[in-house]
């Protein structure tokens, strides 16, 4: 049966084992090269006084010819009698692992090239491991340069045993192991006369035996929201169905918000008949029967088969960043269309993929693989990779760059039983007719709580009042909650015992949350010395909460002592004074640190302003890091 759909094959292997040669010669054998390509390259070689090699067909870039290594992944189409192919030629050089991942992640199947003379090398093992990690399950091994070992059956047997043993140890069974001499075309299309002892399929026969990646029609519905369009009277929820199917009339559950609505229509342009069903792989747009608040990053499913909702999960990941991954560090996680800030809570083990040895450590170097425990600030809707690869994988971003990719495992985590939408079961059952989104649109900015914490004298009140003034003049809806002001009314019944102070902060958190729910930016200026109190304030609506650490050392604050309180405390005039007779717990992972020992008041305010303008400025854009998963 012939097919129109191109099968994507990635070619990997150790540097100089002959990947590009294999591909160049395959293209030639299958008559896939444009007229004159080989002749042009032969002329170039003659002009430069170097022997022609098949690999040059692939190496279209000047820089590559000079260096003799494939710098980036190339996509080359060709056709067998059965079907079209796209060959992804991935570089073998260790430096360029990111390009190999880039190539291999989209492939249907892989060919691992091993030099018959050189045998299995570090990159052979590394690539084999990564292909498996990426979820690729069809792998053929080509033992190349058989001409260099006199087409020896016994040498072929040795290399076979080596690679089989390694692949078996990572749970991979190769589809086929084929002895070839790519340069001369042996066993590429037709059986080689030089190796009569090999009776198996040729390379092209092996490729033709691969199957396209199974579509995810049969898995539960996962429809991550990519965007919400309001170009005309319709409010269209747009996205691509990653798995399963949906039809008009289905009740969808959006995770992690927990909102539900029915599909009213599946929208289309320039299509004669209305669409009533859509399936995995389709980029669609739907309208809903209720105007619930939906934004990018939410994953729609059917109600009885929702994704997992958890703040904490395990992952096996590969690291591509120039700066090593650090335990305790924060990164932006991108999973389907959602973005979350996650902390690397623990690096559980580092895996040496060339011998599978494991090691402990608190950093993961570039090109290494590790198993880690990640924690997000609020619930992430996800699946285990084994259950649903498309919503069970993610990338991590540091500054501007993708620095790693990982697959999710929920082994050993109780969260397994916790559906994503249960997060909001305890939220207000009374629904406003105006959504938070409506308020933001009307305000032309997002709302939220900027929780300033720091020692007395660090600059919280000064910064917050100046911030309020400047935001107000820029047109923001903003209000400052200050300690002394609240204690005159709402908290007039509270004293200064440890319990009363905790209660004071709890009330501030609740009031701040109400302001945020009203669509405003609320700035709180409290010492709030305990992490647990701040975490409780955060937990009311984690997505709207921004912890800002106003940092100044105790020495610095003692020196400033604007209200004379330190002096009084040191003389014993104030009991339990933070920094003097009570502890201050600096934030572990604040969203923003403002170091007032280094920055002037103006510079400090500028820094917070920039943060606000980046994350809250536009009501129409939807920075997913502050997904408002609060029910109103």
């Amino acid at each position, binding site marked *: 049966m012939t097919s*129109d*759909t*191109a099968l994507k094959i990635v070619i990997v292997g150790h540097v100089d084992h002959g990947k590009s040669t294999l591909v160049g010669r395959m293209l030639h054998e299958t*008559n896939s*090269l*444009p*007229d004159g*390509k080989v002749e042009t390259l032969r002329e*170039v070689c003659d002009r430069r006084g170097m022997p022609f090699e098949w690999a040059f067909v692939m190496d*279209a*870039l*000047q*820089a590559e010819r000079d260096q003799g290594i494939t*710098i*980036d*992944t*190339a*996509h*080359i*189409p060709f056709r067998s009698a059965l079907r079209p192919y*796209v060959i992804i030629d991935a570089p073998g050089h260790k430096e360029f692992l*990111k*390009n190999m*991942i*880039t190539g*291999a*992640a*989209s492939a249907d199947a892989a060919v691992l090239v091993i030099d018959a003379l050189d045998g299995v090398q570090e990159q052979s093992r590394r690539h084999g491991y990564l292909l498996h990690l*990426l979820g690729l399950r069809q792998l053929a091994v080509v033992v190349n340069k058989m001409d260099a070992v006199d087409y020896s059956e016994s040498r072929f047997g040795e290399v076979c045993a080596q690679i089989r043993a390694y692949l078996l140890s990572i749970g991979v069974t190769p589809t086929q192991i084929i002895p070839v001499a790519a340069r001369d075309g042996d066993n590429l299309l037709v059986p080689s006369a030089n190796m009569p002892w090999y009776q198996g399929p040729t390379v092209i026969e092996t490729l033709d035996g691969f199957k396209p990646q199974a579509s995810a029609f049969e898995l539960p519905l996962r429809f991550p929201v*990519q*965007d919400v*369009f309001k*170009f*005309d009277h*319709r409010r*269209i929820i*747009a996205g*691509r169905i990653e798995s399963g199917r949906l039809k008009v009339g289905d009740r969808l559950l959006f995770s992690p918000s927990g909102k539900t609505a029915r599909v009213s229509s599946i*929208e*289309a*342009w*320039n299509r004669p008949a209305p669409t009533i069903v859509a*399936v995995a*792989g*389709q*980029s669609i*747009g739907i309208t809903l029967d209720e105007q619930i608040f939906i934004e*990018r990053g939410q994953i729609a499913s059917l109600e009885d088969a929702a994704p997992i909702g958890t703040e904490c999960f395990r992952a096996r990941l590969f690291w*591509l960043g120039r700066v090593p991954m650090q335990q305790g560090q924060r990164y*932006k996680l*991108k999973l389907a269309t959602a973005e979350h800030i996650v902390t690397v809570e623990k690096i559980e083990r580092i895996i040496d993929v060339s011998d599978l040895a494991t090691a402990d450590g608190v950093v993961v170097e570039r090109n290494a693989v590790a198993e880690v425990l990640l924690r997000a600030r609020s619930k992430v809707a996800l699946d285990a990779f084994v259950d649903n690869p498309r919503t069970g*994988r*993610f*990338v991590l*971003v540091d*500054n*501007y*760059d*993708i620095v790693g*990719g990982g697959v999710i495992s929920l082994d050993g985590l109780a969260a397994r039983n916790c559906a994503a939408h249960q997060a909001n079961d305890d939220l207000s059952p009374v629904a406003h007719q105006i959504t938070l989104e409506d308020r933001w649109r009307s305000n032309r900015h997002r709302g939220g709580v900027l929780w300033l914490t720091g020692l007395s004298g660090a600059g919280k009140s000064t910064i917050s009042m100046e911030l309020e003034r400047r935001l107000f003049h820029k047109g923001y809806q903003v209000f400052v909650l200050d300690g002394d002001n609240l204690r005159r009314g709402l908290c007039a019944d509270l004293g200064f015992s440890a319990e009363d102070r905790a209660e004071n902060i709890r009330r501030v958190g609740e009031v701040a949350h109400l302001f945020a729910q009203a669509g405003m930016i609320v700035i709180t200026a409290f010492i709030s010395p305990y992490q647990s109190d701040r975490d409780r304030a955060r937990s009311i609506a984690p997505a709207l909460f921004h912890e800002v650490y106003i940092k100044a050392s105790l020495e610095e604050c003692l020196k400033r002592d604007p209200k004379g309180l330190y002096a009084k405390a040191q003389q014993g005039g104030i009991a339990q004074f933070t920094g003097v007779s009570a502890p201050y717990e600096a934030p572990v992972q604040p969203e923003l640190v403002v170091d007032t020992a280094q920055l002037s008041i103006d510079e400090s305010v500028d820094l917070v302003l920039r943060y606000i303008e980046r994350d809250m400025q536009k009501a129409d854009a939807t920075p997913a890091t502050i997904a408002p998963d609060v029910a109103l």
Partner: protein
Amino acid sequence: MSSDLDALENQSIFIIREAFNRIDKIAILWSIGKDSNVLLWLVRKAFFGHVPFPVVHVDTHYKIPEMIEFRDRFAKEWNLPLIVGGNHKALADGMNPGLGRVTCCSALKTEPLKEIIKENGFTGVIVGIRRDEEGTRSKERVFSPRNQAAEWDFKDQPPEFWDQFKTDFAPGTHLRIHPLLHWSELDVWRYVERENIPLVDLYFAKNGRRYRSLGCAPCTGMVDSQAATVAEIIEELKTTRVSERSGRAQDKESEDAFERLRSQGYM
């Protein structure tokens, strides 16, 4: 139920929507060629008939006249937010392919494109290039960053996998977005046929010759062909071994001419 063309279309729409959502100010580049017409069609599909960002055409003033007629007709018919740019100063100073084809391409295409990007503050430009067109394009990313001088650093490209694209970038850089990167020339023609997308007549053979790739009149040659309909072109492409840009003279000035053009910011 879904064909390979559906799969291509779905992937392209996903990319276009991703660009629209993630990037502040984007525009689409419309060269009036078949690929950018397909791209424009996909944009209209992605946004249900709307084109929610500017459509940029760089007019070198050496374009084949039929192309400009086509542009003006469909810009009106499809109600496109069109921006036309060009390097009037270079033209006034007498820039022409006689001064070197690569020099001319840089002056009349790359430079005005950079100018439009700067003037309008675009942080992303959607371009209809394909991997199978030419060796250097085969190495492109779907979301491909350009530095402040609009240069492409093909030696250090960002990783791109699982449809997670580079959407965070330093101020001053901009992105080229390539939603057709995974299409072949044959795919484009089969899609044109299926969707009945209007194209400039120049693609269809008259007197045994036709254009296979469209550019400026002085640097774009015709190929021998009898294919006078979309269906005939599809048949022709199934058997041809002549490369698509064989009629584009600027690629051939030296063996790395096209690579040099692209690393400087050519599309």
